């Protein structure tokens, strides 16, 4: 008999039990939808993160303590010495491919103005920070070299802080207490909005790094330094200059590994891409497990169906169905259930991905490969878990099947 005829038989049998067929596919529907949503979310997040990094300026280099190499987070991060302010100055003075050098340390502190108090991210920054982050000042002035050298008690506030503390008042010249240190507000930063990770970037107070080190943390070591190259084609040159200088200053002998790393934006993007990629794979794998569970659901219902339809199978065998015909029919039924579940799952998954993308303000991505793989996997699961019940059906002996009550 022809496969097309068997398919018609299979579809007819499923249609006779519409409700049960639909419920059977539910596991696969959820599995496929979850895989697609996770993939779409992961892709959206990756694009958002890499996009945000790119917006920081293409000439940017980030210098961080801890092993270089390709490890995402080097094992020596904790043991590697931090940088000194002298390192910063040495880079500025000696590397001619470098235009701006900045450092920033941050800590979450309590800020008080009048009778209002709030927790805020306090950042100690050097003057070039504004250039490197390409973050301007809305009113007032940025922190300058003088502030940095004097360790002055001056600060800039983000838009969120301004709105909370001052509403319609003029914040310039006002005194706020940051971590019990009285600071004069000299400016308000431009509004930036929410970051990829959902944090409010405007909920911030900036003060000179020197002040931050002396008055807040009691340590003048620098965590991360940011450098911008004089031009895009001198990035590699700048990188080499910095590496050579820092190896000298940190007394790293020839042949030894760096205990710091200098990464350009592309590398950081790749790094972030790897991280989000791993996360996406992880999430999709968890979702794939639910797909597997969905397959087991199909197997269970198909096994029940085989028992329930023993007499029907007997009739088919008596009028001339071969074992292969029965096998094919039940296998096609299982595959159809899985495929229909897959299609419904794709629709729900794409709809859900669209909803999530909108909710999180991320770009919508249709994971084409993910969708194809999820669908293929669903049908594969249908075959895998359909074989057992189908074989059980095909192995029935006609006379016993006919006698089955």
């Amino acid at each position, binding site marked *: 008999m022809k496969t097309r005829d068997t398919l018609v038989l299979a579809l007819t049998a499923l249609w*006779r039990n519409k409700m049960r067929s639909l419920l059977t596919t539910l596991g696969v529907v959820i599995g496929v939808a979850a895989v697609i949503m996770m993939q779409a979310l992961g892709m959206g997040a990756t694009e958002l993160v890499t996009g945000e990094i790119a917006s920081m300026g293409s000439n940017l280099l980030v210098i961080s303590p801890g092993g270089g190499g390709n490890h995402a987070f080097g094992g020596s991060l904790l043991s590697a010495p931090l940088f000194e302010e002298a390192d910063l100055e040495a880079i500025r003075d000696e590397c001619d491919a470098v235009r701006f050098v900045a450092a920033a340390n941050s800590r979450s502190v309590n800020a008080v103005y009048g009778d209002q108090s709030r927790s805020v991210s306090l950042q100690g920054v050097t003057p070039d920070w504004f250039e490197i982050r390409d973050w301007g000042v809305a009113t007032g002035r940025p922190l300058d070299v003088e502030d940095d050298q004097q360790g002055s008690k001056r600060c800039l506030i983000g838009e969120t802080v301004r709105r909370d503390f001052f509403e319609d008042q003029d914040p310039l010249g006002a005194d706020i207490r940051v971590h019990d240190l009285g600071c004069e507000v000299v400016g308000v930063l431009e509004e930036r909005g929410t970051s990829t990770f959902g944090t409010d970037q405007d909920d911030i107070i900036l003060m000179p790094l020197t002040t931050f080190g002396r008055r807040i943390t009691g340590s003048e070591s620098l965590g991360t330094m940011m450098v911008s190259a004089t031009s895009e084609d001198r990035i590699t040159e700048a990188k080499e200059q910095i590496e050579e200088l820092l190896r000298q200053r940190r007394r790293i002998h020839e042949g030894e590994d760096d205990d710091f790393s200098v990464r350009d934006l592309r590398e950081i993007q790749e790094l972030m891409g790897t991280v989000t990629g791993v996360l996406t794979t992880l999430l999709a794998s968890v979702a794939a497990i639910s797909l597997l569970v969905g397959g087991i659901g199909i197997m269970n219902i198909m096994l029940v169906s085989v028992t329930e339809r023993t*007499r029907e199978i007997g*009739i*088919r065998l*008596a009028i*001339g169905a071969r074992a292969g015909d029965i096998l094919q029919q039940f296998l096609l039924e299982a595959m159809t259930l899985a495929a229909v579940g897959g299609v419904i799952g794709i629709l729900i998954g794409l709809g859900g991905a669209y909803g999530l993308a909108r909710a999180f303000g991320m770009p919508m991505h249709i994971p084409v490969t993910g969708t194809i793989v999820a669908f293929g996997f669903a049908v594969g699961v249908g075959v895998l878990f359909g074989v057992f019940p189908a074989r059980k059906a095909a192995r029935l002996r006609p*006379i016993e099947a006919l006698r089955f009550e």
Partner: protein
Amino acid sequence: MAGPDHEPGEGEPEPTPLLELRGVTKVYGEGEAAVHALRGINLRIRRGEFVAILGTSGCGKSTAMNILGALDMPTKGHFLLEGIAVEELHADVLASLRNRRFGFIFQGFNLLRRTAAIDNVELPMIYAGVPRQERVERAAAALAMVGLSGREHARPNELSGGQQQRVAIARALVTRPEVILADEPTGNLDSKTSAEIMDLLYGLNHDSGQTIIMVTHDAEIADYAARHVVFRDGQVIADGPHTRGEAAP
């Protein structure tokens, strides 16, 4: 009481019978629990016969019928179809035999539930690989032949018992089988409907020469058949021709 036309004299050439059971034994179960359903049956059926297999419940007549229809296999002995030992054939060949050469009619009709009459009749042709257009035409013709024109799309639960059995007969006939095997075909029907079904079967045999083997315990039903084979305790105790209206053996 074997008739002379069934037991040829020695050396006399006898055409190969259509169906033959030769020393067939059927045992269900093993050891002490074993049930001997058939104990060495010999039976020959020629083309065009209308044979009634009679006997009380549990005498082995249904078992013999299942073996004759290639639905079951003998424990010992042979079932020959035109001289070929059926028990040696591959399962797919057996399926093909059931599909093309045998047509079954059951006591309980055995139609597919929630499936239109015409689809039930088409089913054996689907397994035979008949193209769709031809299937529909032949199924409709078979239903017309059993007097069910206009009810093609009725489902079994919308049909009376007699009509359901007619659908089953149409399904048995539609592949133009050589043998119709009927197991208590009127067992679930009232006497008036039974008579109609039996007239139909009688007509098939009488007018078209259709070979029919029918199992029944009812002498009235057996009266339609031209040969009576009587079973008792797994053995044939009587086998001879029958004339309609005469008392059953």
